[in-house]
């Protein structure tokens, strides 16, 4: 394949940033073998690839966090070599991360102007100027955020907007957005896109990294695909289709994105009745039967995760009951839930699903630590054997069981989380956003796995914000809105419209 970008014909606007044949290795690991990206002024350019394709490494080179071992890097046609993040900023590059890190105790305006506060005549910081400049920035962006508000408690979406405001105030020519929409709700995504388009029309080049194809096709002008640390190709968004991009990303066709296997549906495994927790959710009734995949759909903040946490015993609840196979489950006791046969793959694998600094083996067997012990002592050989078995079954890619799980890619980390729960041989598996932030290939693997588990009689409760995943995987869809179940839809009735309608408002759709 040609490493040169396959640019289209016509007179393209000037290239504002170009990175060609960049390489970066960490010891034996080649994180980036041939990173190439050309960003024009006034375009939104998508960068796609599986996890581990080298996108993050490339972004970190642009941000000045990594120094490439090889390759050429120009901004506005001038060769550059960034030593620090400050160099990158000075060259007009701003990177907006998935979860911005504002100073929580400072105001919005202070955050925007941190380190370069406008000074008044006395030489002291002029709060008034800071405030008016921040306000005019937000006016330009068309987003009403109070500059005097303390940053603490702002939504992730607002925090990103503030980072963008900061980028504008720095006259950024290039804005890199690294999976900005992963934690946003629909409305927030729309607002972010409007802001991004505004920036583009103002002449900035925007590099947009996302796993969501609908967003990529809605927003971007061109798409660059990476695979295994290499540049694969660049396309005009209007001229390609999702299958083409997916094929380039994974190097093969993904036959079926949602390999739903018809499973025999048996008796109720989980029965939840009248579950309520003041201010969080109320009157939750549902059951999950063996072999069934039940999806909990709804917007972020609808209370889906909270219900799952209460079922598993992480949080308490005020009223109602949770029964597993007809036996009541002790509230607030995750160990009891595990013993009864529930597994829980939480939404945040870095903070909840895994102990990042422990080895792959230790993580995979952490759920089994009690049953691995004889006479109270853990059998080390058996521990390693069990870990090896399950990581092999799930095809976790790691150099050694002893490597810390932090060194794995997102998709492989998620497999370790799944491994540690499957090793307990659960009767009910709760999966919360099972494919968030993982690459297309692994995503399909996870979907196939869930389908396969259901086929073997395991009941699955899946929380997902991705509508295609919900519709593709679930036998039944429960839709939550503001702490209540507003619809129960069978697979046949679960259309995108029906789910979204129940998720956004009315209860008239209740089954």
């Amino acid at each position, binding site marked *: 394949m040609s490493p040169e970008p396959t640019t289209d014909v016509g007179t393209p606007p000037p290239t504002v940033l170009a990175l060609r044949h960049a*390489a970066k*290795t960490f010891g034996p690991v080649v994180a980036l073998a041939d990173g190439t990206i050309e960003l024009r002024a006034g375009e939104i350019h998508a960068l796609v690839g599986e996890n581990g394709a080298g996108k993050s490494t490339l972004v970190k080179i642009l941000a000045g966090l990594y120094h490439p071992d*090889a390759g050429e890097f120009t901004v506005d046609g001038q060769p550059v070599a960034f030593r620090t993040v400050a160099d990158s900023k000075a060259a007009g590059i701003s990177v907006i991360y998935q979860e911005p890190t504002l100073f929580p105790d400072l105001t919005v305006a202070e955050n925007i102007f941190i380190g370069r506060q406008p000074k008044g005549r006395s030489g002291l910081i002029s709060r008034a100027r800071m405030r008016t400049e921040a306000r005019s920035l937000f006016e330009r962006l068309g987003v009403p955020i109070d500059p005097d508000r303390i940053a603490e408690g702002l939504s992730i979406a607002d925090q990103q907007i503030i980072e963008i405001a900061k980028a504008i105030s720095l006259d950024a020519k290039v804005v890199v957005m690294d999976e900005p929409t992963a934690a946003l709700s629909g409305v927030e995504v729309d607002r972010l896109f409007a802001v991004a388009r505004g920036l583009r029309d103002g002449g900035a080049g925007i590099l947009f990294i996302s796993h969501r194809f609908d967003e990529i096709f809605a927003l971007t002008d061109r798409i660059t695909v990476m695979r295994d640390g290499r540049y694969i190709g660049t396309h005009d968004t209007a001229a390609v289709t999702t299958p083409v991009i997916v094929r380039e990303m994974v190097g093969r066709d993904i036959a079926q994105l949602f390999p739903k296997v018809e499973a025999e549906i048996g008796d109720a495994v989980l029965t939840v009745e009248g579950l309520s927790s003041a201010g969080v959710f109320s009157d939750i009734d549902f059951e999950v039967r063996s072999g069934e995949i039940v999806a909990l759909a709804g917007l972020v903040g609808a209370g889906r995760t909270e219900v799952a946490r209460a079922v598993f015993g992480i949080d308490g609840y005020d009223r109602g009951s949770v029964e597993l196979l007809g036996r009541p489950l002790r509230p607030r006791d*995750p160990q009891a839930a595990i013993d009864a046969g529930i597994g*829980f793959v939480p939404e945040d694998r870095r903070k909840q699903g895994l102990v990042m600094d422990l*080895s792959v083996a230790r993580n995979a067997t952490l*759920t089994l*630590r009690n049953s691995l012990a004889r006479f109270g002592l853990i059998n080390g050989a058996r521990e390693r054997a069990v870990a090896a078995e399950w990581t092999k079954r799930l095809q976790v890619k790691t150099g050694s069981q002893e*490597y810390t799980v932090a060194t794995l890619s997102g*998709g492989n980390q998620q497999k370790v989380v799944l491994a540690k729960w499957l090793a307990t041989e659960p009767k009910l598996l709760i999966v919360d956003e099972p494919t968030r932030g993982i690459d297309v290939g692994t995503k399909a693997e996870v979907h196939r796995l869930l389908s396969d588990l259901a086929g073997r009689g395991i009941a699955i409760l899946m929380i997902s914000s991705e509508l295609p995943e919900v519709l593709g995987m679930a036998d039944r869809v429960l839709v939550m809105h503001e702490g209540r179940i507003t619809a129960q839809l069978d697979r046949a009735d679960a259309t995108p419209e029906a789910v979204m309608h129940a998720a956004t408002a009315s209860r008239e759709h209740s089954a």
Partner: protein
Amino acid sequence: MSDPRSTETVEPTATSTVSADTTKTLRDEPRGRTGWARILLGRDAIMIYLLIATIIIAMISIPRFASPVTVGFLLLDVIPVLLIAMPMTLIIITGEIDLSVASIAGLTSALMGVLWQAGWDIGIVLVLGLVIGVLAGMFNGFLVAVFGLPSLAVTIGTLALFRGLALVVIGDNAVANFPPELTGFFTSKIGATGIPTVMIGVVLIVAVFGVILHFTPFGRGLYALGFSTEAARFVGIHVARSKFWLYVASGGVSALAGIFWTLRYSSARSDNASGLELAVIAAVLLGGVSIFGGKGSIPGVVAGVLLIGTINYALRLGRVSDVVLIIVTGTLLIASVVAPSIFDAVKRRRHDRRVRRELPQAQPSGSVSA
């Protein structure tokens, strides 16, 4: 020492896996070792080599060091630190701390003195000494685990509180007339080895804590807890319960140290063992336990305790003043914290240089998950 690296070469593993899939990154060099190399080049092993080296140097350079008398006094000196270091290791691994340990030992000592003077049976006095320690530990555990208060603040408070109680109990008095056969036992040696008889009990306690930390489900849970409370809860670890029992253990063992202190010196005073908590924490950190939690081991801590003990004893034998002793201990502690990061930085630089040299050959294979 035999060189295990002849069979388990370390560096070549780095180059032989250049066919790297991009799923691995390389923050983990030392952890990337496997088998014997991992054990023999680990942090614990280095501490033990350092300890052996220190002992050899002391034997050569300090005339009266190499004798059974040394063994006896050195061990008697380190026993209180070694004892308390055990629960302290577990507590610090969970990301908490207990600063009240020395005060608990003092309180135990004070109570023993008063009860003994009041004519109680020595057996009951010993049991009550232990009980007061356990109660003190429960108090700490209750505040930290049940109420979720920060352990640093809680135990700074109880550090003062328990020491204050000790003073209330015994005042400025000192009780010294403990039964001679008992105090004699506490300073007695096993035959001609010079090893104190009480070491048998101490070794047992060390072994128990070692087994708990390294070979039980509870111990596994402590590491998980130290890294991430949230992740620990998701695998069913009882966060509050685990912490509570650690503080109880800490109180109990501190009381044992207090009993030892009282009977070894045959003196029950309110200021017994004061300041010991810092010696313990210094030794634990020197032994490789991370103050942020999640990392550490009992063998490393034992080596750390003995290393500080040996250096102190050797320097004192060499007539070095106490002020210098403190400076040495402090420097050692800082060195132990700084050394690993310098080591890492050097290694990273070496790596980068090699990578730049070898880069053109690096051919990543295109393995994609199936």
